[in-house]
């Protein structure tokens, strides 16, 4: 007998979960630097265009795929063309890889929330992070054993994620999002208010917002804008397909897409103001230009920010707890969504109970994540992150729009479905964006990534590491996609 599919309790609950999925670490540590590096204030122009012609259309497409088939990624693609089930598993394999290291970064953020109390990282924040905390060794391939100081917070984060996922869609994910998202917004507003009232904040904001319109003539700026929109909205993870499959039959898919996308982008715009205000403060303290202290990613969060917090005139610990706490909360709801997409796929195909699927997926992902808790883990993480994003997410996103727009030609049917259930009408711009603009830009981005890869090897890593960890993992995800599509479908059948 077919088991009833789980369902969100309320529309607000779904929206907060979808926004929580989109808002992650990248909103705080990626967007500000990408905007600064690609024309400052002028970056808003390609960013808005990318949002309208790729971000929101793909988001609505994924909502429609999940909602119309009432299934996870593999089930949705299988319902379009049975032999395309592998695309869903490919996207879930990519999600699995990302979840394994994402959880470790959350563990670091949790540690730093604690270290912020009394600024325990000391004056040399670089040495503290790499040597004292991570225990990074000299040789790339020497793992150096599991670091207990990293393992414990990672275990705590895994326990919290496991608990939420076990409770299910409504009592777990929705409840967690309802609590965490408002708290996160309040924390960010507090960070921004403190940031913009620091001496030197205006210097940082000037660097972030002063437009350099000549940058708009540079093609890489446009690729960066589309890339940012693509990464920030959790597209091509098959997350939104799973999340929208839990929506009731009558729901406003298109307006949900607008609200989720604009909430996410509003959040990162606000985060950028806070980050660059604080970087301006650091530049003034060190008597250097903001350009010299501007950074992103792990370097921003775990090296630059501790230095900044050390120099705060007052309430250093409070600001540190707010900043790292916001990273934990932002990343937590994203990690839940990545794992839920996989759990949903496993349940659909193999007919497992929620408990069985959560145990299987979280157990396997936890074991893999242990490799990143070793002394050599950060090098592994950096390589895997680079390759799986550029050749897993972007490429599977490209295949996704080619399948739906050109191979299966499903856009008219999906558009009818969206307009039947939604209040906001989706017109020709949606079809044109998905059939022409998105494949073109994603194809250009992939070509550019390959060109960059061949021009210079990524980082200072050994070629053996780039080939096995980078290329191996990216290729392995495709192979796993095919392998997992082979067993007989044992769960609920497709409805499309």
């Amino acid at each position, binding site marked *: 007998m077919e088991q009833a599919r789980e369902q969100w309790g*309320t529309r*607000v609950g779904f929206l907060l979960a979808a926004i929580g999925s989109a808002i992650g670490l990248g909103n705080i540590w990626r967007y500000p630097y990408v905007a600064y590096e690609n024309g400052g*204030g002028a970056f808003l122009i390609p960013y808005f265009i990318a949002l309208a012609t790729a971000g929101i259309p793909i988001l609505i497409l994924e909502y429609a795929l999940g909602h119309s088939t009432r299934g996870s990624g593999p089930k949705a693609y299988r319902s379009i063309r049975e032999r395309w089930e592998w695309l869903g598993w490919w996207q879930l394999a990519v999600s699995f890889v990302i979840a394994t290291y994402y959880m470790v970064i959350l563990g670091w953020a949790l540690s730093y929330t604690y270290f912020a109390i009394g600024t325990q990282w000391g004056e040399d924040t670089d040495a503290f992070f790499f040597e004292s905390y991570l225990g990074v060794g000299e040789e790339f391939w020497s793992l150096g054993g599991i670091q207990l100081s990293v393992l414990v917070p990672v275990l705590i984060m895994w326990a919290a994620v496991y608990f939420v996922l076990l409770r299910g869609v409504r009592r777990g994910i929705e409840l967690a999002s309802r609590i965490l998202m408002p708290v996160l917004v309040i924390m960010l507003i507090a960070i921004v208010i403190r940031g913009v009232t620091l001496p030197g904040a*205006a210097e940082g*904001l000037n660097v972030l917002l*002063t437009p350099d319109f000549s940058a708009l003539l540079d093609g890489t700026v446009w690729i960066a804008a589309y890339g940012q929109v693509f990464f920030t909205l959790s597209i091509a993870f098959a997350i939104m397909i799973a999340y929208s499959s839990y929506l009731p039959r009558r729901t406003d898919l298109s*307006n949900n897409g*607008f*609200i989720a996308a604009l909430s996410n982008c509003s959040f990162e715009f606000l985060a950028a103001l806070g980050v660059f205000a604080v970087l301006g403060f650091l530049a003034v303290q060190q008597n250097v230009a903001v350009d010299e202290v501007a950074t992103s990613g792990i370097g921003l969060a775990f090296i630059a920010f501790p230095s900044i917090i050390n120099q705060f005139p007052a309430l250093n610990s409070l600001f540190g707890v707010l900043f790292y706490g916001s990273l934990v909360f932002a990343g937590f709801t994203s990690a839940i969504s990545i794992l839920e997409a996989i759990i949903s796929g496993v349940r659909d195909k193999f007919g497992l109970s929620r408990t069985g699927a959560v145990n299987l997926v979280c157990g396997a992902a936890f074991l893999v994540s242990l490799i990143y808790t070793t002394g050599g883990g950060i090098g592994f993480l950096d390589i895997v992150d680079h390759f799986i994003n550029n050749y897993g997410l972007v490429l599977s996103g490209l295949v996704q729009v080619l399948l739906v727009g050109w191979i299966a030609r499903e856009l008219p049917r999906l558009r009818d479905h969206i307009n039947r259930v939604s209040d906001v009408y989706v017109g020709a711009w949606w079809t044109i964006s998905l059939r022409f603009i998105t494949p073109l830009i994603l194809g250009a981005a992939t070509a550019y990534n390959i060109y960059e890869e061949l021009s210079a090897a990524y980082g200072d890593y050994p070629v053996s590491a780039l080939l096995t960890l980078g290329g191996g993992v990216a290729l392995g995800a495709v192979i796993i996609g095919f392998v997992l599509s082979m067993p007989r479908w044992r769960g609920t059948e497709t409805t499309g």
Partner: protein
Amino acid sequence: MSTSAWVMFFIGAGGLWGGLIFFIIYALRSSRRSDGSGWGDEGG
């Protein structure tokens, strides 16, 4: 902050936050119009 930085700030804030408020108000109005239900009880 420079004038051009302020202009870009208002474009960003207006476009993103303004757009968000617009679609939230639209959703609130249309859900009331269609079936009388609010945001809290549209789900399962």
